[in-house]
């Protein structure tokens, strides 16, 4: 791997981080804005990790939020029920450990779900991943220790802009380095033609299970971050519609483009809030109930994006700073 090129992305990220932080501290961006950025960053982590499974390896997964649920509940159980810690600086190691364990638990589930992918393809696999997600939700509804349908409550608020930013960045770098290495070409080969990949001697089993494990790990970490941001986790948050939202972000950004995943995660999260703002202002001015039409416009814009950018915002292209070795693409 060419480590010489890595710092460019690091510098860009550091720059963005500092700009947002300074704008927040000087009051240019209020906490509401920062909250939306936090949410966008969690969606970046989810979308980029789904990109590894779905975009790069071509394994159609409809249960990505199921992994996030495992991460949220496992890490939340550790910080809330096991240690019952306050979100102070000295306790951050416990939080980080909890996030990692949550991620590993999700990865384990990912491996479990990866195995059916050895036998099943396309929409058949989609049903199985969807079913797994729903099974996880059913189980969570029935474990009273973690609250059942009341949800896991009182999770300490460890997540903040700093943590969420770092995790999104690390996810992006790890998936990028995987994608743009020889492993990455193996993933792509499976996506393009699995039989051919096998015939040229690729261990497709290993790569598919690997994609599911790594993708699920980061989804689990993202789930943990979400739980520690909202201070709660609830089974319904991680259902089918949640997984579909991540899928929308993936395709709206462009399958296989990590840049696209990042842009779409931000764009779609901000779109809902911007529409809220604009329509509220307009209905104040006109005295019409325009706010009711927010989600109608959202859906319409989504369709238009796909009609005019049929391969998503970025297609399969990457921004230069995300490319590890420019000469090879």
């Amino acid at each position, binding site marked *: 791997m060419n480590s010489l090129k890595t710092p460019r992305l690091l510098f860009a990220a550091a720059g963005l981080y500092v700009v947002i932080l300074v704008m927040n501290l000087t009051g240019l961006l209020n906490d509401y804005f920062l909250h939306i950025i936090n949410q966008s960053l969690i969606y970046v982590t989810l979308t980029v990790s789904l990109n590894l499974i779905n975009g790069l390896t071509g394994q159609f997964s409809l249960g990505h939020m199921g992994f996030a649920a495992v991460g949220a509940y496992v890490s939340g159980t550790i910080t809330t029920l096991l240690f019952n810690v306050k979100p102070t600086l000295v306790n951050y190691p416990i939080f980080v450990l909890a996030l990692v364990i949550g991620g590993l638990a999700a990865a384990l589930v990912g491996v479990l779900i990866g195995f*059916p992918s050895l*036998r*099943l*393809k396309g*929409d*058949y696999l*989609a*049903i*199985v991943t*969807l*079913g*797994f997600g*729903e*099974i996880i939700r*059913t*189980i969570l*509804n*029935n474990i009273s220790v973690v609250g059942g349908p009341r949800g896991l409550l009182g999770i300490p608020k460890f997540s903040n802009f700093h943590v969420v930013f770092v995790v999104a960045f690390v996810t992006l770098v790890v998936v990028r380095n995987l994608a743009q290495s020889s492993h990455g070409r193996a993933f792509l080969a499976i996506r393009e*033609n*699995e*039989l*051919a990949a096998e*015939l040229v001697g690729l261990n497709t089993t290993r790569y598919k299970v690997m994609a599911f494990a790594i993708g699920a790990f980061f989804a689990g970490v993202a789930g943990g971050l979400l739980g520690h941001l909202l201070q709660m986790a609830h089974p319904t948050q991680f259902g*089918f*519609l949640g997984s*579909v939202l991540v*899928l*929308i972000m993936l*395709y*709206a950004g462009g*399958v296989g483009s990590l840049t696209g995943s990042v842009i779409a995660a931000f764009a779609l999260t901000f779109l809902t809030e911007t529409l809220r703002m604009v329509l509220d202002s307009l209905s104040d001015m006109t005295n019409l109930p325009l706010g*009711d*039409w927010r*989600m*109608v416009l*959202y*859906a*319409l814009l*989504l*369709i238009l994006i*796909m*009609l005019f950018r*049929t*391969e*998503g915002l970025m297609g399969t292209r990457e921004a230069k700073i995300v490319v590890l070795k420019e000469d090879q693409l």
Partner: protein
Amino acid sequence: MGSIFNAQQIVNGLQLGSIYALIALGYTMVYGIVRLINFAHGDFFMVGAYAAYGAFFLFNAFLGGSGLPMAAVTLIVAMAAGSVVAALTNRFAYKPLRNKPKLSSLITAIGVSMLIEYLFSALPFIGASFRAFPVLIEQKLYKIGTATISNYVVIDLLVAATLMIGLTFLVRKTALGRAMRAVSQDKDAAKLMGIDVERVIGWTFLIGGAFAGAAGLLAGMTYPRIFPYMGILPGLKAFIAAVLGGIGNIPGAMLGAYIMGLAETFASAFNSLLGEGIAFAILILVLLVRPRGLLGEKSADKI
């Protein structure tokens, strides 16, 4: 444990399966030809239910009366509404993406689904609230041994069976059916053979939408409560039934739907807390044993 497999539960499972089958049949037809997970199919179903609801009140206001003519008119309106929405969706959201990556249309499908739901929810004269679906046909209950069965269940079952037979006939015996099969097997080859692929797809959406509309009416009659988001879950179940039966296989969709109905019923009777999860576990097991669905054909991978 033995007590969960009694006559009444079998009737319950068949009723649930019939509703799933009604939606899954239209679904699998479209699915077999354009190979697109049509997320909006559940919403065509919802539109059908609302159209029937509206037709009922208009019919009542202008002509009055009820009984068979009323039921026939509402059925026609529901089917027409389903067709129109399906055709519009195909024309404006799917057709422009026909030769693009399949997954782009998947996102527009989700977008269309959201658009229809939120639009119905936002329109002042429809709104998000639940509405009581009118009684089109008086309900009658029959006792067969220890089980009670309603005439609605019989109607649902008969309609689902008729539609399946009709569809199978259409696909196997008519010129349009032959063209459909050709398009589903190889679009490009079909085009070379002089088949107007877009016309065939257009017809498929019209018929599939009509089926969804009819299903909306029957579901509204059987479970008399309609609201703009009523199509999400049935749409998902239809998708699962279609995949379970084998993509694009019409008897397969029907079989898949009944298996799901029975699996859900028995799983809930066995343990209602875990019922949903058990039903999904059964589906996963079935797919692991039959990776191409129950009646799906084995096709060789192309390199």
